């Protein structure tokens, strides 16, 4: 059902004032969020566009100059890995917490662990990965420790979003599925999870965005390289865009700044593309769902 701005206002003065204030606050809050966001995005695009060359996407980096092909591929590999590792773990955790958990101490431990994990500074995660995995286990700077650390970081966001989304699925849906004789697991998959999909996807998107935007934990686990990622999980460093965003911004030459601006732009475009594609997929699966207004 389409929402329209309500036309009528109540007659009582107090209620009317509150209704108007609500609308003003609502738009004010939106401005507070959208203003800086646009400011940031326009800034990123505006800095990068004048010096933009398409071959940035196809040539390898030379650190403070050259292209970013290695970092683009590396970031995609890292995001895909996080989607597989953290996505599975997070969604399953969320489903368990919402559908199967009976309460009790064990579940509280899981919930607290999730919240605390979300509050761990990324640099500490990275450092622990460096000490225990890269050096301790001798894995070196490589894909696996990076994926593990990034996944630890974002599982909470996915699990929480999944749980919250499942929690909001109306009981009537579950009861309807039951009345139709659907076995529990089937109903869960076809009715409950599907209805909650937009919320779950939001969690995955936030998680991937955070994973793609992190620098510090990767510097200590993935290392850096100017070459393309290899297929090995261990002993080969991997490149990512955020490294170039930060390091090259802090370099003295104009060429390095161009690399930094390009890396920021690519990252933002990647996030944007991810959001659009994910929403398109979701809206296809939701075509027949009636959960939304």
């Amino acid at each position, binding site marked *: 059902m389409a929402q329209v701005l309500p036309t009528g206002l109540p007659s009582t003065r107090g209620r009317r004032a509150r209704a108007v204030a609500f609308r003003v606050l609502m738009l004010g809050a939106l401005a507070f969020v959208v203003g800086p966001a646009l400011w940031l995005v326009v800034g990123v695009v505006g800095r990068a566009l004048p010096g933009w060359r398409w071959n940035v996407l196809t040539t390898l980096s*030379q*650190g*403070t*100059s050259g292209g970013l092909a290695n970092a683009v591929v590396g970031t995609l590999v890292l995001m895909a890995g996080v989607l597989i590792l953290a996505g599975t773990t997070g969604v399953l955790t969320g489903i368990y917490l919402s559908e199967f958990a009976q309460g009790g101490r064990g579940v509280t431990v899981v919930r607290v662990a999730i919240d605390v994990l979300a509050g761990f500074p990324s640099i500490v995660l990275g450092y622990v990965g*460096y000490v225990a995995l*890269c*050096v301790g286990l001798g894995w*070196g*700077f490589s894909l696996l420790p990076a994926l593990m650390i990034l996944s630890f970081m974002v599982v909470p966001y996915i699990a929480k979003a999944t749980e919250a989304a499942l929690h909001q699925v109306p009981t009537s849906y579950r009861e309807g599925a039951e009345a139709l004789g659907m076995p529990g697991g089937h109903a869960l998959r076809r009715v409950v999870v599907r209805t909650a999909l937009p919320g779950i996807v939001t969690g995955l998107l936030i998680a991937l965005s955070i994973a793609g935007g992190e620098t510090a934990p990767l*510097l*200590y686990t993935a*290392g*850096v*390289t*100017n*070459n393309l990622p290899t297929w090995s999980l261990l002993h080969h*460093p991997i490149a990512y865009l955020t*490294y170039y965003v930060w*390091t090259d*911004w*802090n*370099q*003295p*030459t104009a060429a*390095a700044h161009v690399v930094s601006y390009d890396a920021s732009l690519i990252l933002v475009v990647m996030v944007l593309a991810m959001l659009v594609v994910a929403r398109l997929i979701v809206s296809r699966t939701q075509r027949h769902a009636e959960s939304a207004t």
Partner: protein
Amino acid sequence: MKSIRRPSLRTISTLALVGSVALVGLSSVAGAGSRPAAKKKPAPFTVKVETPPAASLSETGSTLLYPLWNLWAPDYQSQFPKVTLSTAGTGSGTGIADAASGTVSIGSSDAYLSPTTLSSNPTLLNIPLAISYQVIMYNLPGLTAHLKLNGTILTRIYLGKITSWNDPQITALNPGVKIPSLPIVALHRADGSGDTFLFSQYLARQDGSEWGVGNYGTTVTWPAIKNQLAEQGNGGMVSGCAATPGCVAYVGVSYLTQGLGDGLGYGQLRNGNGQYVMPTAQAVALEASGYTKITPANGTISMINGRVKGGYPIINYEYAIVNTKQSSSSTAKAIRSVLEWAISPKFGNGHQYLSQVRFQPLPLKVVEQSYKQIQKIK
């Protein structure tokens, strides 16, 4: 490691002596072209660059050395295509830690290894690669002169005792210069940094009475004063200073061009001899030559506040941090080859590379010492 403590009076006077000797030496070198070469002298030292086996090497560390590594790496690899050399700017401390843990082949650092680091990692070397220096920049719109500054004044600025640019202590030092009456905003590095190491050492040695003679390091506890800002990285220092009229900032020389482009000025500094010196290539070379003879075989020395006549007082060696014990002899050989290439005046230490980042080449004697250190990598 006594040699890297604050120099005693004796070292300072030796230094002064060496400085003057070096000056004489330098002038004789300058005249050498016209005279026949001395007969009994051995042939001047030349660096032999080994031909490396196939290897994949990585370098991480100092963000100040990072652009130079990025100039070196492609040219080295085109000369020796069997080697791939990947570079990264992560910060000196990380470079040291990575080299010590063996996660990278070469670490690079603006500061030499501390005695405690060496005692817990006795197989680490710090090999001088090039010479860098630090400039003091400020944002004083309309001012074109290079202000004279010294350790006492900078100390008082960073302690919050001098708060305005037209403070009598500054104007007295700069007669005839019209300094605007802006409040001073003291910028320091938010992150731990080799630049902080150099700058705090300069303050400690110029005027230890107010700053504290032992108060130096890659991180120092800056007093909380009203007009101060902390910035991440040299790039942050320059852009932060450009955004804040009245600021003063210590910046690695590679960033001088960027700072000038952003409208910043830079000052003359008082050296250990009491002279005010501009940060020019000549003044830096002069200072470096003064330290050449007392640079120990392991390269560990501070070159701050020297008494060399006309020498600029904040210069330093940039180091490669390498473990002498490598996993294989072929890796070791490749690392040696890269470093030999880097210190060779014909290749890495040539003007064509160093001038792009405003670094200075190593004096030949130090090249020889670095070469000897490189040979220890097995």
